């Protein structure tokens, strides 16, 4: 179960719709509905961490299933930049992109479980890239 220290940016075409049906998946996490996962910028992620978020999750559509065509891929790129910027500060918030279609709650559940189990992103080699 996520607490208020988790900030989620959720695509209105996928994860936001899933959240309406199954709000227990995101628990108490802060939800910010965005028109597309690609709308999330490194600045949004940094602001969330600055205000105390220990985990930031971008909820995107599956690759190939995005109304804006490349939203999930672009969200990954923006999050990679946010990770690099965050690494410079020495902070270690966990940053993740989870992907699930609006009709696939199980995919979201699996992705969130995986995100919760991962080490802080800034401590991984992936974050350094």
């Amino acid at each position, binding site marked *: 179960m996520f607490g208020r220290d988790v900030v989620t940016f959720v695509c209105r075409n996928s994860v936001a719709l899933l959240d309406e049906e199954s709000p227990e998946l995101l628990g108490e996490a802060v939800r910010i509905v965005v028109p597309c996962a690609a709308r999330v910028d490194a*600045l949004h992620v*940094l*602001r969330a*961490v600055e205000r105390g978020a220990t985990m930031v999750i971008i909820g995107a559509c599956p690759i190939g299933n995005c109304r804006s065509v490349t939203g999930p891929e672009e969200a990954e790129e923006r999050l990679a930049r946010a990770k690099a910027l965050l690494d410079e*500060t020495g*902070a270690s918030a966990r940053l993740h992109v989870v992907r699930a279609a609006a009709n696939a709650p199980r995919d979201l559940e699996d992705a969130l479980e995986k995100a919760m189990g991962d080490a802080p992103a800034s401590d991984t080699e992936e974050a350094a890239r």
Partner: protein
Amino acid sequence: MIVADRKSLDDIVDMIGDADKVVVSACNACVTVCLAGGRREAGILASQLRIHAKEHGKDIEVREHSLARHCDAEFLSDLDEELEWADVMISMACGVGVNLASELHPKHRIVPGLNTTFYGATDAPGRWLEMCGGCGDCVLHKTGGICPIVRCAKSILNGPCGGSQDGKCEVDPETPCAWQEIIERLEAQGRGDDLIAVEPAKDWTTSFSGGRRRRVVEEIYEEDEEASA
């Protein structure tokens, strides 16, 4: 436009030292377009500084600020209040802005948040290419609008050199040979024979190595002097 890169956070933290009150001032002109120093990038830096301070147990206050541009004194007067408050200002403008702000506010500490790199243009979203070296003696009319000063690694005026291979530069196989491009462009314009003429040695006295350059429009400059008299 002027293109710049942001300095690393470590470099910026070193520059601000033990300042408790920091203002990050964005420039909404060229460096906004190249995603280096605009309002968003200033926000990112300010946020990084706050997170860094928190991680390192420091208590600093960081304000964000932006100006239409930092290269005109009229706009820089808006900095007065922020500079009075701050121990140090990080300018997210190009070097021109840092110079001018420091000249107009000599009692205040203003440090550069960016490394100013070149005069360039947007080649594709997220990529900018150098186009002009500001040498003060333009030869673009002879080279089909392709600057041999910055687009040729050797800045030669009678190219290509022996290092041009398959249209690429020997310095970097990803970089087109500027002289190959010049030849192709002039040939396409039916001006290939223009290249037979030997270009004499360039007069570099117009470039930056002769000290600070200035441009004066006499009648306007005199009018200003009269107005201030």
